[in-house]
């Protein structure tokens, strides 16, 4: 699965994308990311799966496209 970081989150993690494997859902992913990148705990963001922002815990499948989205600032 591919994971993308945008905006401030790319800056904080030093990554714009990474491959992840063996993660079954977004709650598990969040725990792992907060362990790997403790600064994420202090930042606001939403998680999209296949370009949709889901509510609650979303199941991940092989080939899912996941992204961490900080607050939007268009306009």
């Amino acid at each position: 699965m591919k994971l993308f970081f945008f905006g401030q989150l790319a800056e904080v993690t030093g990554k714009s994308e990474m491959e992840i494997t063996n993660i079954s859902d977004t709650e598990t992913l969040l725990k792992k990311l907060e362990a790997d990148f403790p600064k994420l705990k202090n930042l606001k963001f939403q998680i999209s799966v296949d370009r949709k922002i889901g509510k609650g815990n979303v199941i991940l499948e092989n080939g899912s496209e996941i992204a961490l989205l900080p607050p939007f600032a268009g306009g």
Partner: protein
Amino acid sequence: MTEKKKHKVFREGPISPDFIADSISKHTTKTSIGAHDIFLGQVRADVINGKTVEAIEYSTYQEMAEEKLHEIRELAFTKFELTCMHIYHSLGKVKTGEISLFVFVSSPHRQSAFDACRWLVEEIKKDVPIWGKEIFGDETHVWKENKI
């Protein structure tokens, strides 16, 4: 007749007044239109902790943004009586005083044009994954966040 074809929203750098004027002039042949409404978002020189913003550098999650904008467009055509609609947003660096968002709606009558334009701008700010880095004169920056 409505125009629903997909068009490119994102443009590199600021949206020039000439581009806006050209867009307006392209509508002279569409004589069912009685009202246009236009929103222009301009980069503001905010002062944050004593430092003045000189530019915003925009980025996006392009695939998701395009899907979301497509949904917003389709919904706008069902909600409002529109003849056509154009949305352009900058990517990359836009200096203060320059235009970063251009929303242009056309309708037979003014009320639909006013309502659709306002609705579109609010939806774009709220739901489209676009980020802005506010850059100061000393090269430091903060990340912009829209007020909902």
